[in-house]
């Protein structure tokens, strides 16, 4: 021990790890690796199964990586009218919905961030209260029904147009992280409040806007509840509704490439089809993921405690 200390001192290094510390570090890496394996296994399996010969899935020969490649499942997926409809609708609702979300959340949050604006405390309270108490599923359904929104495009974008939590996160950001001096300066120069928001505040707040886009977009893409509750025409259904039919109810609808000679072959195809459907429906979010990772950590931190 004495030697070790002397050596490290002489070399100018940090204190060397003791044996206990090395055991500790080993345990940390072993546990982390175990977690990594457990979490990644289902993800890898899904991708492998989607490009495997379905026979390998059924007979349990697929362990991790595909033994024999087959892209038949993807062919079937891209031939399905239902999935195409779902894809189209989900993109439409997600993009339009997120655009509405961002405009309303930003304008609302900015207005409420101006400290000497009369009435802002009352409105903020009105918004915060809805985070803790609400009418619930059925009364909300009745209101939407009475507004004549059922089974329309608008029902997929309006009822969730603003999230109270997101609005308050953004309000806090505008109030605390944007220097008030530049806002005052813009006002002195005769810039209108909306002009200040657009030309001065927003350009300095793009990271919070990115965080909001991520939160809202992922929410729209993955949402299942509002489509289940408010839509009843197949042509308006979202991707998630069709996914549920295929994955959970085992109802394959119009799937199949048309080249199947027997029902046995069809049943076989279904096995890899399930996984191909998961991959295809999740791919846009996963492609977006590396870009998102830069921002969402920041977002989670802003949303916590002082939300």
């Amino acid at each position: 021990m004495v030697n070790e200390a002397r050596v490290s001192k002489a070399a100018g290094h940090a204190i060397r790890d003791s044996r206990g510390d090395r055991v500790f570090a080993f345990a940390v890496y072993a546990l982390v690796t175990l977690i990594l394996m457990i979490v990644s296994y289902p993800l890898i399996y899904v991708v492998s199964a989607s490009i495997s010969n379905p026979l390998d899935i059924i007979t349990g020969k697929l362990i991790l990586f595909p033994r024999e490649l087959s892209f038949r499942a993807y062919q079937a997926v891209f031939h399905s009218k239902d999935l195409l409809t779902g894809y189209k609708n989900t993109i439409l609702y997600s993009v339009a919905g997120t655009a509405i979300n961002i405009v309303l959340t930003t304008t609302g949050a900015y207005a409420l961030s101006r400290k000497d604006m009369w009435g802002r405390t009352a409105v903020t309270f009105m918004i915060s209260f809805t985070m803790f108490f609400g009418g619930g599923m059925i009364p909300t359904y009745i209101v939407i029904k009475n507004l004549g929104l059922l089974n329309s495009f608008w029902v997929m974008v309006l009822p969730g147009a603003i999230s109270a939590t997101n609005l308050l996160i953004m309000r806090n950001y505008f109030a605390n992280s944007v220097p008030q001096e530049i806002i005052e300066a813009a006002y002195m120069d005769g810039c209108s409040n909306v002009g200040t928001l657009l030309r001065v505040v927003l350009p300095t707040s793009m990271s919070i806007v990115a965080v909001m886009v991520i939160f809202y977009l992922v929410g729209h893409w993955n949402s299942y509840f509002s489509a289940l509750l408010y839509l009843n025409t197949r042509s308006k259904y979202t991707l998630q509704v069709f996914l549920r039919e295929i994955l959970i109810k085992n109802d394959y609808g119009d799937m199949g490439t048309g080249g199947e000679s027997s029902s046995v072959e069809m049943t076989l195809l279904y096995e890899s089809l399930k996984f191909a459907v998961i991959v295809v429906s999740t791919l846009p979010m996963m492609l977006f993921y590396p870009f998102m990772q830069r921002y969402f950590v920041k977002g989670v931190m802003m949303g916590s405690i002082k939300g």
Partner: protein
Amino acid sequence: MQKRLILRSARKYWDLYLILLPTVVYFIVFKYLPMVGLTMAFNDYMPNLGYFKSPYVGLGFFYRFFSSYFSLTIIFNTLTLSALNLLFTFPLPIVLALLLNEMRAKRYKKLVQTVTYAPHFLSTVVVVGMVTAFCSPSTGVVNDIIKFFGGEPIYFMAKENWFRPLYVISEVWSTMGWNSIIFLSALTGIDQQMYEAARIDGASRLQTLNRITFPSILPTVSIMLIINCGHVMSLGFEKVYLMQTDLNLNVSRVISTYVYEQGILKTETSYSTAIGLMNSVVNFILVVTVNAISRKVGEVSLW
């Protein structure tokens, strides 16, 4: 005085009031109108008569719910699933955050983070779909493993005993990484000089973990725990509904799915509104109580 203040604010901020208007309208229409609709819980709601002219029945629908033999089962199911879920999904992200914090290999750490955060971006439908596919008795990989070790395949989705474990396991899988972010950020906020000082004094890594790391993240852990406890009655609807089958109704029927079943599928509007209202009131009381506790204990508050 007050009047002049309002006038000045109106002159300076007229355009802001204008852009705030859609937000206010949104909250009135989609959040406060439904609260008015809660009066349906005390009326026998008839669509043609409206909220206030429908015949008044007082607490009739609440009596109906509590006198039915399954009301206790539904409440029990909700609380059990919530509590079990909390028991596992709460501590594991803390463990993951602590492990990540002890890692010195930067790139490996980054890889672990990327992989463990990813399931958060899968939809509930996909996660439940994966559970269904993996647990299939004939083709699922879980049963392949059981068969490999000589066991009998288990019909997971058809067995009510497996509903809660499958719910919790898949929930842990999809939320562990994401929920660790908040704890990891608390950990990186710890002053690194404390660690250096401890090392120089000869503390082992286990000792620094015990004496520095744990106490430093305790406030974050306790407030997160308190917040989570406030939500035990507000179990999400989607996942339970998606995992529900006729075979597991005994354990999978919770308050929110029962409200959906009665209100939307059976159009028992008033009855289901009453159950929903009861649930919301309990939630509200829980959150307020829990916040009062956290304010007293940790001097941290939500508002």
